[in-house]
């Protein structure tokens, strides 16, 4: 379905950011290249700590119709910080405040308490509605029914609207339109079609492509994958992961399927009744899996399967959560073999036998580029930060491999 050629084109397209860089101030350029720099050296896993914070909420509140008789609070004391180049998953049930949060971050709403900082803009309660054009140019927002913001009479015009509006020449806008469409897995023959003649799934992809075409530094996507087929979903998420890792873009994605984004997301925020009840990575999320239902969020398959297996093979509990089915199968196979060997030798205290090296070797062959994990002792496999981070770096790449072969 999606050829490798398209991915290549997408890789090349990262060069077109030169134009944007020219418009920007020197310091911003330095920031942007710093963001990209961290990607170029994936070995330095702790550089994440040095990356600039692009979004910061401090005790942010938002109340609809504040002061009025129908005031209803949508957000209470939300604190969050997002560094450049991270992919953040936002989960939560209906009415938990996810969408309000995205609107605060784009300056569509001003906080009614606390502060919101996005890039170099700080939004405070009661301030005069600031001029945010410069900010909005750097943020791409896609709402829950993105197909509803298609309005031109051809797909191409729709895709060119953003770039033209931000002052790019026509040819450049055209080029970006074609690239954005290709990166969403759609063919060029659609460019001249009227958006309303597309199928539901195609419309949705065109709408997301229109956000990509504008080339924003920060992208906020409200359930972009709903109504896409599962291969297209995986493809979109692999693309988003690439935009983060390779181009240093920051992406916040609201989803009600944690499962689909668990592999790619660096961080998670779970919203419940207007509060950010959880902030952390997938491992921390796994630790609190039993609280998810209470927050109105379905437990993702990965966590459910992993919990089942760790209940059976307690030695697995010491491992970080494997993000992919392949990885999880390998860990389980290792543990099962270890258990068999110790059962045979009557040594219960040795959960991992030498047999574990077999599957690890297999993993290397699979070309995931991941360093083989030590498998002698459970103790040597703690929540090894470095391994996990290195894993995270290769996830985008692995996502592509999987898609290219499907």
């Amino acid at each position, binding site marked *: *379905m999606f050829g490798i050629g398209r991915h290549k084109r997408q890789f090349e397209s990262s060069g077109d950011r030169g134009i944007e860089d020219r418009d920007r101030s020197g310091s911003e350029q330095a920031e942007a290249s710093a963001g990209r720099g961290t990607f170029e050296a994936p070995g330095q896993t702790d550089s994440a700590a040095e990356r600039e914070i692009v979004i910061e909420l401090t005790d942010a509140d938002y109340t609809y119709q504040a002061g009025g008789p129908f005031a209803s609070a949508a957000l209470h004391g939300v604190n969050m910080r997002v560094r450049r180049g991270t992919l953040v998953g936002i989960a939560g*049930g*209906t*009415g938990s405040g996810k969408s309000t949060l995205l609107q605060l971050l784009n300056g569509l709403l001003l906080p009614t308490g606390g502060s919101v900082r996005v890039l170099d803009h700080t939004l405070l309660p009661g301030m005069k509605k600031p001029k945010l054009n410069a900010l909005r140019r750097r943020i791409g927002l896609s709402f829950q*029914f993105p197909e509803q913001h298609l309005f031109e009479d051809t797909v191409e015009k729709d895709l060119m609207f953003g770039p033209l509006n931000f002052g790019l020449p026509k040819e450049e806008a055209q080029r970006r339109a074609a690239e954005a469409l290709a990166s969403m897995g759609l063919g060029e023959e659609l460019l001249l079609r009227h958006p309303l*003649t*597309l*199928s*539901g*799934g*195609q419309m*949705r*992809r065109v709408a997301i492509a229109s956000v990509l075409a504008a080339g924003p530094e920060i992208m906020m996507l409200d359930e972009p994958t*709903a*109504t*896409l*087929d*599962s*291969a*297209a979903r*995986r493809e979109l998420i692999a693309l988003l992961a690439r935009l983060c890792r390779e181009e240093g873009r920051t992406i916040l994605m609201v989803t*009600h*399927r944690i*499962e689909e984004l668990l592999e790619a997301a660096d961080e998670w925020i779970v919203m419940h009744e207007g509060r950010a009840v959880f902030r952390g990575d997938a491992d921390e999320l796994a630790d609190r899996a039993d609280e998810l239902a209470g927050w*109105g*969020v*379905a437990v*993702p*398959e*990965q966590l*459910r*399967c992993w919990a*089942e*297996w760790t209940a*059976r*093979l307690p030695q697995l509990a010491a491992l970080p959560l494997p993000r992919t*089915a*392949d990885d*999880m*199968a*390998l860990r*389980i*196979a290792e543990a*099962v*073999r270890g*258990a*068999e060997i110790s*059962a045979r030798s009557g040594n219960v205290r040795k959960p991992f036998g030498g047999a574990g090296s077999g*599957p690890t070797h*297999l993993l290397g062959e699979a070309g995931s580029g991941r360093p083989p994990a030590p498998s002698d002792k459970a103790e040597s496999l703690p929540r090894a930060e470095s391994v996990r981070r290195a894993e995270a770096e290769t996830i985008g790449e692995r996502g592509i491999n999987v898609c290219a072969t*499907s």
Partner: protein
Amino acid sequence: MERKNAAAAELQNVEFEYEKGEPVLRDISLRAEKGEWIAVVGESGCGKSTLVRLLNALLRPRSGTVSVFGEELTERNAPLMRARIGMVFQNPDNQFIGETVEEDIAFGLEGLCLDLAEMERRIERYAHRLKIEALLGRHPGELSGGQKQRCAVAACLAMEPEIVVFDEATSMQDERSRRELLEVMRDMKRQGSYTVFSVTHDAAEMLAADRIWALKGGFVRADRTPDAFFADEELLGDCGIELPFGLRLERRLSALGAAASDGGAAETGAKQAGEGGYGRVRHRQT
């Protein structure tokens, strides 16, 4: 006039195009029996929604025939046949008409020229069945997505159709509402009085169906049971479908020999994986 053992729906050599020279459906021949649940799957733009819109004559084929309950759909009988086919769409907001949920259900019933007592009886019965009694007096705008979709299903079922088409009805729902709606569909299946078509990208929904019609490039790519369908990885790839995580893990494990080995630990492990989530869905249906 209506044959006794007629198919609920039958398409013969159906071709369809929206614009000249751009066929969307080509040479489609498919048959669904009464009481069957058919999942219609495929990549976006493959013609799934077009296909189900042919079934109630919202669209007409360019060539070939579409028959419902043994009767070929024509301009003349289309209005009558439509009364026997209910549709539930992706975005419930697009099909609400009434000021309250109750009014909305009544709207469809008025169209059937039922008397007041019968309308009240049906509203009560279907509101009860879909657990929306408490919502009857509410404005649709006050409801959550899942509640809205349940009301839309109630409005559809109250018209007592024999065929119900769900066109990606679960795709905009959050996880919990999706499960609820799937349970409603399973209930309908258990009652046995409906023939159900569900256009879907959701693996759980496909696994719950009796049969899967897969489209690719406007042609029928496959017409199989869910088990046979999910066993064919090439077919899944062609249809843009990825195995759900639980199944993928199960397959990887057996490929690694961890699940297939005769070691006691491994065997119970595999069994557990099989009993969880999707495995359960599959077994319940067989």
